[in-house]
């Protein structure tokens, strides 16, 4: 039984890699999306709105299959049109990370937009009046406060993203879910109720991941809310 559990633990590492990689992509896209949505440029705002609305209207799995299978064919057709006969096989890990990042970037866009809107404009204007550049205003004034305001939404998005990583098993990536399912099928005769056991083990690991992130993010939230006085009776 131990070798099976160890292999599932190896899949857990992959889950963390996918989750951390895609949250990085999602945060970057979210920042760009929020900036675009709040920008004076009409096309940029429109594009960001289409992005965040469309993505949130379609299931993660469908987008993932579209990008995985479609990207594969699209890429090779493009290469063919360019006169190259190279065949590129897309790495499911990369597709998983990029797709999950792309999807949750839409959710992050909304979270970050709300956080930026909650910061009084006067503060940014004051920054500009002191001669700071747009980037300096963002790094020195907007960002530190945004962290506090965006953390509750970010926590939610991160937890949902974490659980969405289980979908990469459907792209054939050997993550925890995939390995647990395989181990269950392989050990069926030898270990009583093996499928139930191994899947429950994978579920337990996910529960550990979500619990630990909940604790860590709450600590971070406390750290960034140090200067805030709450209304209390």
């Amino acid at each position, binding site marked *: 039984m131990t070798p099976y559990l160890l292999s599932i633990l190896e899949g857990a590492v992959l889950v963390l890699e996918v989750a951390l990689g895609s949250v990085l992509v999602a945060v970057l896209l979210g920042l760009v999306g929020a900036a675009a949505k709040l920008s004076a440029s009409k096309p940029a705002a429109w594009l960001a709105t289409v992005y965040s609305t*469309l993505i949130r*209207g*379609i*299931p*993660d*799995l*469908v*987008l993932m*299959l*579209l990008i995985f*299978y*479609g990207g*594969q*064919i*699209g890429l090779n057709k493009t290469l063919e049109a360019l006169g190259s006969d190279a065949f590129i096989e897309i790495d499911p890990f990369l597709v998983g990370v990029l797709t999950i990042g792309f999807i949750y970037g839409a959710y992050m866009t909304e979270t970050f937009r709300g956080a930026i809107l909650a910061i009084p404009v006067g503060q940014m204007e004051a920054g500009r009046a002191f001669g700071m550049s747009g980037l300096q205003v963002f790094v020195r004034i907007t960002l530190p406060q945004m962290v506090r305001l965006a953390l509750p939404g970010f926590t939610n998005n991160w*937890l949902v993203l974490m*659980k*969405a*990583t*289980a*979908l990469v*098993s*459907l792209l054939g990536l050997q993550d925890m*879910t995939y390995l*647990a*399912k395989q181990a*269950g*099928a392989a050990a*069926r005769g030898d270990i*009583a*109720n093996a*499928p*139930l056991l191994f*899947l*429950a083990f*994978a*579920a337990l690991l*996910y*529960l550990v991941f*979500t*619990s630990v992130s909940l604790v860590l993010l709450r600590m971070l939230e406390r750290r960034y809310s140090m200067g805030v006085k709450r209304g209390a009776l």
Partner: protein
Amino acid sequence: MEFDVIFRPENLQLFWEGTVNALVLLVSSLIVGGLLSLPLAIARVSANRWIGGPVWLFTYVLRGTPLLIQVYLIYFGLAQMDFIQDRWDDQWPWTWFKEPFFCAMLAFALNTCAYTVELLAGAIRDTGHGEVEAAQAMGMSRWTTMRRIMLPSALRRSLPGYSNEVIMMLHSTSLASAVPALLDITGAARSIYSDFYLPFEAFITAGVIYATLTLALVGLFKLAERRWLAHLAPRKA
């Protein structure tokens, strides 16, 4: 792009069947999960830790693990237990586990139940203190207060949150395609993809169907909110 393949009668039929299956799955799991969530939400807000605690654990575990694993746990885990397989030929209720539809529905129902319990419990907790006090001053018992004052208002106030949950569940039905022998919208797209090797056409069609259903649900909930949350709508000038 060869979207004409999608519009062949047999493929339209496939998407139609998938859509019907997904909607039946969605509605039945929402009904089962919804009915279960009401008593559990009342238990969740109980001052007694031995009543509220187990419900908290239930929702914590179901909200902290991926739905795909929950579906697998029931379809490959529970349904393949020796105990159940010994009985699923003739003994009710174990015969149900032979049906892939039932396994998926059970997983979805329990999952949506967990989220709905937290939603409802939050709304019950947020009931105005004065409303409860007034009910008690009128001589209502705790159950009467719950039934006449807290629940009607809590159910209304959880409507906007519930619309999100229903849309999440609609999107979650795409996981049914991970259960063999169950055809949903995503399953139809996957089968067309593998038959014709047309990923864009197949999955974009599925995406359009989901987006349309999402918009329809948003519209339905707007109507429901206008009907039941009229007292909370912003005042018209």
